[in-house]
Structure formats: C-alpha cells, structure tokens
C-alpha cells in the first residue's frame, strides 16, 4: 500500500478524510459537465446555463426524431460505425492470427510498422488522404457514369463513393482503428495454445474450417475487446466525417450536432442537449463493457 497504516488511529482517520476530500473534488470536476446536458435535455426552457428544469418534458427528444432528421443521423452513424467495426473485427481477427503464428522474416518489421502507424496523427494525414480519396472518387465516378449514365451513377456513388459516400468513410474509419485491433488480436492469439489447431488439423480440417470452428470461438474475448475499442474510437471521431461528408442525407450524429450548434441565431439548447445525450449514450454503454479490457490495452505496448 502506498498509504501507510499509521499506528495512530486519529492520524489514520485524517488521511482517510483527506483521501475522500481529494477524490471527491476530482470526481465532481469529472462529473459536473454532464449535469447540464442531462438537465437541459429534459427542460422545456433550457438555456446555455445549468438550471433545474421547472417542467420536465421529453419534447426535446421527440423533436430530434420526429421533426428534425435525428433518426437519419443516428441510423447513418450506426450504419457507418457498425460496418467499420465489423470490418475491423474480421480483418484484425484474421491478420492478428497470421501475425501471431507466422515465423516469417517480415513479422518483426511489420509489428514495428504497426506501432509506428499508431502514433501518426489522423489530422496530419487528412490532406493527402483527401487527395487520394478525391482521385479515387473521380475515377470511380467516370467509370460509373460510363456504365449507368449520370443520374443512377450519382445514386450509386452515394453508397460506394470515396468522398461524400458511405464506403469511403467506412473504409477510412476502419483503417484508423486497424493497428490497435491487429495488436490486440496478435497479443491475444499469442496466449492461445496451438494444440487446438493442431488437433483440428489432424482431423483434416481446412484453414477456413479451423478458423470457423476452432479459432473464432477461442478468439471471442479478444474480438470483443478489439471491436469495442474500434467502435468507441470511430463513434467519437469528428474529423473524418467533417471532411469526407457533405450531403445532408449522409450526415452522422457528430456532424448533425456540430451543424445544429452553428445555427447561431436559433440555437435551441434543449434540442442540442438531447441530441448530445443521444450521441453520448452508445459510447458510454460501449465504454462500460470495455472497462475491464482497458488496462491490458493501454499497457499492451510494453508487455507485447
């Protein structure tokens, strides 16, 4: 224990009280910004300031889903982030397995590269990334227009386009979560003994059967951790949708919240707070599940 068990009981109580006081201050500092969002979201006359609602109402939430496009934003977010998370889990599951089992010369360079990729800030990559996606998008657009004509091509691009289309955002979001997920899965498979696979191999199972029947069941906890972290990080991302999306139909929750806030003259704090809460909730739930994996993941870098 860092704290000494002082022989003197009054001294010990004093230390205990000090601990409570310090932790209370830190906790209140952490919790206080949440109150406003919670209270304002159920307040009929919400303002920028923290106040006790005079009348409780769910009107703000109703407005998000009925009058404004909140349903679409939420579905867009769930679709984009959900698909990206799924891609990350599949690719990291396969890739992590390969990285754990291979004895090839490229194993160490590859792992070091992944570590270094993790430190590259997305903000610094965004400009060339935008150019790359723009070029790819223009190429794809030309091809699609050749085949389907102008109108249908635009509709298709909405889904498979790299700029202002679902596919581009999904792939980039997934890629940004991939290094950590690969690392988690590689570390995870390192702890799974090879005996199981070898037994399956003896029974004549193919690679795909081995993965489906043996490895996926064994890897579920690791995949859960990798998926949760990918989801939380992609869900909270603001820069990529800000740069890659412009159509209102594709707008996700962070953009909806940000743009609703920019309507300076008609800021409706109750609506914004409710929207912020809707956006916040899935992240908090996912974080609750991810809690027990936090330690391993953060220190994963050192212990390997």
């Amino acid at each position: 224990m860092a704290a000494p068990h002082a022989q003197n009981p009054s001294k010990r109580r004093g230390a205990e009280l000090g601990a409570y006081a310090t932790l209370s201050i830190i906790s209140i500092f952490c919790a206080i910004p949440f109150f406003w969002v919670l209270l304002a979201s159920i307040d009929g006359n919400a303002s920028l300031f923290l106040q006790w609602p005079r009348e409780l109402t769910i009107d703000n939430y109703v407005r998000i889903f009925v009058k404004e496009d909140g349903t679409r934003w939420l579905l867009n977010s769930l679709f984009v982030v959900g698909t990206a998370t799924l891609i990350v889990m599949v690719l990291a599951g396969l890739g992590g397995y390969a990285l754990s089992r291979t004895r090839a010369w490229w194993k160490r360079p590859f792992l070091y590269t992944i570590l270094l990729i993790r430190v590259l800030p997305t903000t610094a990559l965004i400009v060339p990334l935008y150019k790359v996606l723009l070029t790819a998008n223009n190429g794809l657009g030309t091809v699609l227009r050749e085949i389907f004509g102008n109108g249908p091509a635009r509709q298709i691009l909405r889904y498979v386009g790299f700029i202002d289309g679902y596919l581009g955002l999904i792939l980039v979001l997934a890629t940004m979560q991939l290094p950590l997920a690969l690392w988690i899965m590689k570390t995870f498979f390192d702890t799974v003994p090879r005996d199981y696979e070898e037994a399956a191999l003896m029974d004549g199972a193919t690679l795909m059967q081995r993965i489906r029947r043996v490895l996926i069941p064994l890897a579920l906890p690791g995949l859960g951790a990798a998926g949760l972290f990918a989801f939380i990080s992609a869900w909270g991302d603001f820069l990529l949708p800000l740069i890659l999306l412009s159509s209102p139909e594709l707008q996700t929750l962070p953009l909806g919240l940000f743009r609703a806030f920019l309507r300076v003259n008609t800021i409706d704090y109750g609506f914004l707070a409710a929207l912020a809460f809707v956006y916040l909730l899935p992240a908090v739930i996912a974080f609750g599940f991810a809690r027990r994996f936090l330690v391993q993941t953060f220190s994963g870098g050192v212990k390997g």
Partner: protein
Amino acid sequence: MTYEKRVSWQLRLILLPSVLLLFAFVIYPAIYSVYLSLTNEALTGAAALNPRFVGARNYIRLFNDPKFWNSLLVTFLFVIGSAVIGQFVLGLFSAILLRRPLRLKPLFNSMILLPNAVPEVVAGFMWISMLAGGERATLSRIVAFFGVEPTDWLQTFPLTMIIIVNTWRGIATAMILLTAGLSAVSHEVYEAARMDGATPRQIFTRITLPLIAPTILLYMLVSTVSTIAIFGFVYALTRGGPGGATELISIYIYNQSFTAFQLGYGSAVAVVALVFSLAIGVIYVRVLKVEV
C-alpha cells in the same frame, strides 16, 4: 508445394486485406504528403487545375510564418499543460488514493472514467455551457464562491481553458496506466521502508516514484502523441480562436488546407507534425524496448 509452404502462404493471404487498407489509407498518404508539400496544390483556383512543383518554397514560407510558430507553441503548451501536468498529476493522485479500501471506491472510479467515453464534439458542447460568459455560467458561479469576478472564460483564458477540458478528458487514461504500474510494486518494499521509519513523503519520492518511472515514461509518450492528434473538441469549442490562441497544429493544418484551400502548404505543416510524432514513436519503441 509442401505443407509448411502452403500454411505460410495462407497466413500471408489472410493478412493481406489489412495490409492493403493500411497501405492505401495510411502509408501511401503519409509518403504522398511529402510530395504534396513540395507543390502549390490547392482546392480551388488555377493551382487546383495545374499544380506545380515548387521545391522547398512551402517550407521556406513555413519557416517565416509566425502563425505556424504560434501553432507549434500552442501545441507544445497544450501537451505540457494537459498531458504532462494536468492529466498526470490528477491521474496519479486518483491512482494512489484509490488503492485504499474506500467504501465509495466504485463510485469515484466510474466518475473519473466517465469523461473518457465522451465523443469529442459532445465534450466541446458540454464545456461551452461550463465556460460561457456571464454570472450564470457554471464556472463563473463556482469561482464566485472564492470571490473571483466572472468573465467570458474562452475569450479571456482560451488556452488555459482547453487545457482544463483536455485534462478532464484524460485523467482516466493516466489513472488506469499508473494504477497498473503501482500494482506491480510489491507490498514488501513498502513494509520494509516503514520498518526503517520512512515518512509517507519519503516513501513516495524514494520508492513509489522511482519504481513506477517506466510506467510514467510510457504514459508520457502515449499521451503526448495522442494529444498532438487532438482536433475535434478544440475545434468545436474555439475553432482555433480567439486570434489563434488555441490554434493547435492540427487546427492550423485544417484551416490552411480546408478553409484557405492551400493543400500544398497545409501538407508542409502536416509533414512537420508527422515527423514529430514519428520521432516520439521511435523513442517509444527504442527506450521502452517494446517486445514484438
């Protein structure tokens, strides 16, 4: 083909999709940014149609650009203030105090962890209310208790405020890592020190700190690179203002590239940020002797 060989090809094959994605959206853009930074590439105007190679001109301009140096300084102060001091000190306090068997421990723990889950835009939005101007804003009301005059916090102390917000977001990260570090220190060491009559203060500075030094270093490196990458909540709060006071390098890159539409110049700034982060990454791998 031998069995061994087939397995080794299969492993390569299932790693391939990850490699392709990482190459297309991270490695190639990182290399391409170096090329872009040597051109006058733009989003609009003549340069957009016909970008030219301009050599080191962007870097010369960068060197003489006070706004660039300002953004480096702001980023530096932001990292020192929030990651190195704010999050670390509060995280260390929390980690040490939460080792006691306190009854409210789970509650404290959850409350400290909560900000970590908040998406960036929501964080910015919550703090706009906290830091608003006027007597009725939350921070103004709290400090009024201590006789401090209310002010428009984001206008008067912009950098300090975003440091406070980022501290708020990251106490949990520091706490989690340092808790892991602390729990690796054995109880006997403390017992022995106490037998020898060491004071709590001596125990902390002579035993706890040195023994968790590697964890502290790991935390510093990890939090420094992740703090350099911060964009969302600061952009939502201040958009870099007022007058560049919170223009972190990430916001400067964004403003140059997507507000001023100068992709070439924005890339030059981005290359600087990439080099910095890579350097820290290499230190991280080498100093901590990461095992792979």
